[in-house]
């Protein structure tokens, strides 16, 4: 894969926690590229390093060794301030939980990243995003007045409203029932197909991963394989083969 077409990539990424006897190697020399305009899922059992990988690519955590690039920018060279600005301009996030500021209503939460940057949201784009996630009639509600699925769709809308180069999602459907989960993932899929958005998602749910263009598997901090355009069954099959 050509490095120029990658929205983000890691090269020889290593991450070690702790010191002495208690060291844990979460990432062990991982090299992966995430293609522009594609929906990539990262899967793996607990402790495989999938969340750590996401945190490091997103610039939330530092690597012990190796490098991370968003576009052509090497994150290791950036100061905290520059990193913050990079996240603000080029990255969107959807977390598993605690995505929203409880004191702001849905609309304010969606425009938060743009407002933090001191700008106003592009009204046309805001409308497009809001209609896509189907939150038009919920904009003035506080998070506590929204269902879990609605809250996550607000989070997704927020991640998209600043037109980031790449969106990172950490188990976005982890707390949702299957219907809400499908709605959210369907929306993420459309964001990739219709707006050409790049999305990287960590999940342990094969049904969620099946929405992706490509699934990367991690085990013990290393890439253990990948599937292109898989179905949920193919993914489950693959996971079984790993287990066996």
């Amino acid at each position: 894969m050509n490095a120029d077409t990658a929205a983000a990539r890691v090269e020889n990424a290593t991450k070690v926690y702790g010191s002495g006897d208690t060291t844990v190697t979460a990432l062990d020399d991982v090299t992966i590229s995430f293609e522009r305009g594609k929906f990539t899922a990262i899967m793996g059992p607990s402790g495989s390093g999938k969340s750590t990988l996401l945190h490091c690519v997103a610039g939330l955590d530092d690597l012990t060794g190796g490098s991370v690039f968003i576009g052509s920018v090497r994150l290791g060279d950036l100061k905290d301030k520059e990193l913050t600005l990079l996240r603000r301009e080029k990255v969107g996030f959807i977390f598993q939980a605690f995505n929203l500021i409880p004191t702001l209503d849905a609309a304010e939460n969606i425009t938060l990243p743009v407002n933090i940057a001191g700008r106003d949201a592009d009204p046309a784009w805001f409308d497009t995003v809001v209609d896509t996630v189907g939150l038009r009639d919920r904009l003035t509600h506080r998070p506590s007045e929204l269902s879990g699925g609605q809250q996550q769709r607000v989070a997704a809308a927020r991640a998209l409203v600043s037109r980031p180069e790449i969106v990172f999602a950490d188990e976005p459907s982890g707390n949702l029932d299957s219907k809400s989960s499908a709605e959210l993932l369907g929306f993420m899929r459309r964001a990739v197909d219709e707006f050409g958005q790049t999305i990287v998602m960590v999940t342990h749910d094969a049904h969620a991963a099946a929405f992706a263009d490509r699934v990367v598997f991690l085990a013990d901090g290393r890439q253990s394989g990948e599937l292109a355009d898989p179905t949920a069954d193919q993914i489950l099959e693959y996971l079984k083969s790993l287990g066996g």
Partner: protein
Amino acid sequence: MLKLALKGVLAHKVRLAMTAVAIVLGVAFVSGTYVFTDSITRSFEQLFRDANAGVDLVVQGVSDFGTTVPRIDEGILANVKAVPGVEVAAPSVSGSAQIVAPAPCEKGPGADPAKPCPIGGNGPPTLGFSYVPEGVGLTTFNLTEGDWPAAADDVLVNAHTAEAGHLAVGDVVDVITPAGVEPFHISGIASFGEDDSLMGATLAVFGFDTAQRIFDSEGQISSISVVLDPLLDPTVVQAQISSFLPDGVEVITGADQTENNLDEFASGIGFINTILLVIAGVAVFVGAFLIQNTFRIIVAQRTRELAMLRAIGATARQTTTMVILEALFVGVVASAIGIGVGVLIAFGLKSAFGAFGFGLPATALVIAPRTIIVGFVVGIVVTLGSTLVPARKAAQVPPIAALRDVDTPPRSLGRRIAVGVGVTGLGLLMLLVGLFVTFDNALSVVGLGALVTFVGVSLVAPLIARGFARWVGGPMARTGVAGRLAQENAMRRPRRTASTASALMIGVALVSVIAVFSASAKAGVADVFREQFSTDFQVRLTGFSDPTAAGLPPALGAALRTLPEVSVVVTDRFGDFRFAGDTEAGFLLAVDGPYDQVVHIDMVAGSPADLGPGDALVGRADSERLGIRVGDTVTIQFASLVTADLRVVGIYEDTAIGLPLVIDYTTYEQHIAFRLDRFVYVKTAAGVDLEQARVAITAVTDAYPSAAVTDTEELIGDLESQIDGLLNLLVVLLAFAIIIALLGIVNTLALSISERKREIGLLRAVGMQRRQVRRMVRWEAVLIALFGGVLGLAVGLALGIALVVAVGEGLRLTIPGGQLFTYLIAAGLGGVLAAAIPARRGAKLDILDAIAYE
């Protein structure tokens, strides 16, 4: 960010309200003090202007320091009248005159109901004036009933006095004056100024000749008010009059007189202002701890929210700004409320002063722009200052915290030890320097040192908090799981426990200092009196009074001298003076009679028995400083700036008398106009039973309702209760700071309960009863409060001991163990009280809600 900050404030209404209360109380105290003192000053300004209105010139004795204005020779009056252009020259003579209301009358508890009661005194002055017809209109007296005093036994009283004693025109009342107690006939009632409130002073006006007699001023007057032909230049006449005035007499304009009065008043009120502001400062300082703690907890609780903001692109500066904006908002709103409450406090102070007998003019409260500005500056600066650390914490929240459910591990306490110990050391050093080295503003250095010490101790406190909770919480933990968990909770966040306790520490430390100081003062007084007094009885004014402004008529001492039951009667008096060449004035003691027979005096040289007119005894310290020996001449200066050369006949150890100079009454009365005695010392004649002597003495003093007869032990008891009363007043004022600190405990508990919602839900789910939850919260509060109490006692003891050692003279270091222990218990109970609401809230938590995920 502004929007987010505002929403944050609205979302945390309750906890920010608690913070706001701390600021409101502090600001209210500050602005209340200003409103109060400004209002008094304004109304007295008016009074003084009215009093001197219409008076062009005033001729009076020079009074450079002290409170007693010297008399001038009456002969000057004729000379002044003879000056061309002088239209009116009204003489006035003033002194002390206390009206006695006939029994039955209202009086304090425990007083003999059959006895008449003196009106006023015990703080506010009892003033007497003379009346001359040409002076009407030149004073602030407005006749409201009856007539001016015409006959020799007439007296006019002010409305306040008439009201207090239920007196009417035509009544006959006894009046205590330097000449003794005499009956007078009330000829009229007048108001003084607009509404007749002069800080509770009682005023009596007598005919001119009577006034001269009863104030022991034959041939003398206090001042002359001069009205000039309006066409003349007052400065020319002033110069003319000035040219023939003897030394010690001056002529000034009415306007200058007003300014002098105002200056004198301002320095008096400035003292009250300073005390109130210091206490307000303590309240604000304690409030700062509370604010800091609240914001710290709010930031900790919002770690994930802040981290999320950081993750989606908020810079560190933006999160800091958000917290600061929240603080700013709270500070502004709370300061505004505080200023409003301050006006109410000023009302309260005014009525409190009224209740204590210091009636104040009923003028409108003055809210100066300065009051509002200072209120806002104090409120906002304190809030922002206390938020700096939490705001920096907000900036340090890493974005990754949004994704991980972990506490950021607390930074090591190592650096804190160094800083805390350093700061504490600096504070103690400042304290010691301020206490033991003499220089200007030493007192402010002491205050600042105490402040720095408090901050230092609060920095070190988290280190001790864990150990304290382990040891003191040990017995608690044995009472059951609730106690055990409470102990763990207090240990889990030593910083929070410590900083909550620190607020309480300050209040407890200050009341402990007061306790140590007052116990030492009482012990010192008792020591001195037991050692020095070799009399059987003393007679003195009841209550608390200024010995240069109030006292017993000399007639009382004279009457006692005639009793066959007594052998020795000695009286003494205070006066203002300074050694020639000094700038600081002090008090001298004048004695009449064989002083060495009633008081033990440790003499270094010479003999007190030799003291006669023109002689002086000098304290050792000043004799060494001035290089004076027995037989030398010492030159002293009186308030009139007149000097006198006195022959030194003895030098004594200072502790024996406590004042630097002793003279006799003849010398005193030559130079000082004050005519009232402080003490009458009485020694029973040989062979007379003490009880019998007391009956005889009391028979004489019964005519003087303001006099009290005591033996030495009773006198010590009286003085001890006076010291207690004074210091209890301070403790009551400091209660403000302690209330704020308790609010801090309420706040911390409430916050940590909402933080531990899940945990409490889990405990309830596995079977903990509501009662046990309540108990757990209560124990934690008690632990925090006791920790604050113990820290406070430790710091307070250290400060108190240092203070007592530094003051030294007249004090004997005494640690009031029982009282301090009571404070500690009170602190613990305060904790229980503070826990009431949070405990109920904790117990009421709905289990399902508490353990529900998100």
